[in-house]
């Protein structure tokens, strides 16, 4: 390996010797491609004409009025595929082509990364296999069908918690078996080096656009950026452009599930300890022996007991403040955004909005004043969540036409 992929003490590549040659080849290809104007031009062209970049930065007027600060929504939900995942699947599939790989493997939680990989597989003519926890197959049916329409094979994973962490285990196994021909399209800024660095490089376009659009529309950079954090790909993408700009406050929002003290959540930074999961040293939910605990979140995309190593580092240094939102708070934000702005957000993204709202409504006064420019990264759209959210809302006594 040419680099160690460390963020302070976090990161690295804790994998079987069998995967080292593949990671070495991936690192070399990624370094070369990212420095190659031809690769960057091809990717930019695809992002513009196929995927629909740049995505708008929308000034949410009714939200702003209610929250007492100027709220700007970064509309990654409008990206082709319905989430920010397309940014990094296009980049990785293009790399796979360049490396002469003949098939794609991916894991998926909510199904957005699986869909985005399946789309890229179709676009580039690469057969695609997506591993998805059986529990997620049940709660994200529309995305399963979309992947199948794009020609991907969806493999339900029945081991462990039957969700994202187990899908990653099986995808790693499949990659180990087919390492000569297959490219593993990783879905977040976690996993062994070089994935956290590579996925960040492909997602940082979000924050770069935020900076540019904010300057253009508001004449200045935002005061704060909020993003939800499961593995943390949309958050790193939204934050990267601002890490060296200390005047921009950054907030990552972890899933608090039934509550941080309930034992049923996915808040690896708030409640985890340093450990090694899926090839990286990061914050991990685990028992005293080091067995990985099952996470819980209403949103499949955040239902993960680990977090990307750069987030663990940014939490340690204090550059990013990590908050959390419960299932209930996320659901409330989900319906609230629908009714106030006519936008149906993913349950994942609803966590970011919920944390902003909670801070503005806090008894001690709002976190951001009336002149503050606050960006919420709306990482994906909520069509995939309809059935699941409908059931969860009904279970909480909600009926159409009512606020929660």
């Amino acid at each position, binding site marked *: 390996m040419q680099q160690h992929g460390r963020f302070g003490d976090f990161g690295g590549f804790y*994998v079987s010797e069998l995967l080292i040659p593949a990671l070495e080849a991936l690192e070399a290809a990624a370094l070369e491609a990212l420095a190659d104007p031809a690769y960057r031009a091809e990717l930019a062209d695809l992002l513009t004409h196929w995927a629909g970049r740049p995505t708008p930065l929308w000034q949410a007027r009714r939200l702003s009025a209610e929250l007492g600060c100027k709220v700007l929504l970064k509309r990654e939900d409008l990206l082709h595929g319905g989430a920010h995942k397309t940014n990094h699947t296009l980049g990785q599939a293009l790399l796979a082509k360049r490396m002469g790989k003949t098939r794609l493997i991916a894991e998926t939680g909510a199904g957005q990364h699986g869909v985005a990989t399946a789309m890229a597989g179709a676009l580039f003519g690469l057969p695609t296999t997506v591993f998805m926890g059986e529990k997620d197959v049940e709660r994200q049916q529309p995305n399963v069908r979309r992947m199948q329409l794009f020609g991907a094979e969806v493999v339900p994973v029945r081991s*462990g918690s039957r969700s994202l962490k187990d899908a990653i285990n099986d995808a790693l*196994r499949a990659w180990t078996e087919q390492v000569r021909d297959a490219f593993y399209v990783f879905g977040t800024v976690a996993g062994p080096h070089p994935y956290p660095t590579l996925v960040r490089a492909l997602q940082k376009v979000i924050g770069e656009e935020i900076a540019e659009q904010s300057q253009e529309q508001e004449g200045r950079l935002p005061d704060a950026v909020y993003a939800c954090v499961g593995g943390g790909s949309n958050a790193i993408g939204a934050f990267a452009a601002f890490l060296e700009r200390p005047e921009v406050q950054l907030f990552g929002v972890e899933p608090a599930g039934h509550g941080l003290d309930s034992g049923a959540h996915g808040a690896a930074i708030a409640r985890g300890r340093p450990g090694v999961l899926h090839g990286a040293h990061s914050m991990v939910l685990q028992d005293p022996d080091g067995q990985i605990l099952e996470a819980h979140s209403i949103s499949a995309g955040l239902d993960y007991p680990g977090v990307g190593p750069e987030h663990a580092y940014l939490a340690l240094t204090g550059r990013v403040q990590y908050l959390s939102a419960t299932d209930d708070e996320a659901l409330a934000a989900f319906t609230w955004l629908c009714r106030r702005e006519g936008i149906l957000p993913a349950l994942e993204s609803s966590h970011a909005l919920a944390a902003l709202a909670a801070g503005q409504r806090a008894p001690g006064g709002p976190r951001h004043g009336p002149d503050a420019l606050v960006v919420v990264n709306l990482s994906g759209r909520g069509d995939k969540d309809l059935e699941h959210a409908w059931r969860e809302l009904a279970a909480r006594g909600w009926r159409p036409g009512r606020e929660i």
Partner: protein
Amino acid sequence: MLSDPSRIAAAIARAKAQGRGAIVPFVVLGDPDLDTSDGLLRAMVEGGADALELGLAFSDPPADGPVIQAAATRALRAGVRVDDAFALLRRHAERSAVPVSLLVYWNLVLQRGVERFYGECAAAGVDAVLVADLPLEEATAALEAARRHGVAAVLLVTPLTSESRLRAVAAAGSGYLYVAARVGVTGERSGVEAGLAHEIARIRAVSTLPLLCGFGIAGPTEVRAVAEAGADGAIVGSAVARRIEAHLGDPAAMINAVRSFVGELRAASGRPAQGTPSRGGPQC
């Protein structure tokens, strides 16, 4: 290169002196429960194992196939903790001189503390430790702790390992080298990947450590093939776990099945008389 003093290397050398490859069966400690697991350790010794490879159950073992993962899940569901696994290891060491290699995932070592972990291994009579998800670049702390506590640090080499990397791994490893007989995760496959003899020769050219082959060793046929390819022995895991799985709920039958399976492996481990003797084996 110094001769390796480990008991594992000595056991492999003893098998070689008897004209056969070493048989190293693998089970997950505590699978399917602590008592039965203790019986299985005895049975493997009685069946003729030259050494044992024993795994600490881990919740998320991506280097293992579904059969070993299921074994780990059974142990964890039975409530087996790392402390219990060490207790099993101590009981084995008290009654048997058959050496033990421990297979672990790094997070279990990290959470216990690297120094403490290797110290406990030494105290429990563990001869060697292989960390499944620790490549050489990340292994510095493990290699140092292993050396301090007199535990061999076993490293993995694969058909994909480059020449320069092979040299570095061979120089850093001790006890034996774990040779992946095929590319993939652990699990049974019929036959052994073509080119294993060439692979063994490639490794012999840079290392005097004994070579044990694992990954995909399903039974006596593969054990024989591995011996014929010039390896010093075979590690057999998933095939043992499948026998455990087949007899869940009947510990006596399970223990008998594993004992006789290890016996079959042992019977198949003889090298053909005109077989190519390996160069540069252990000098213990």
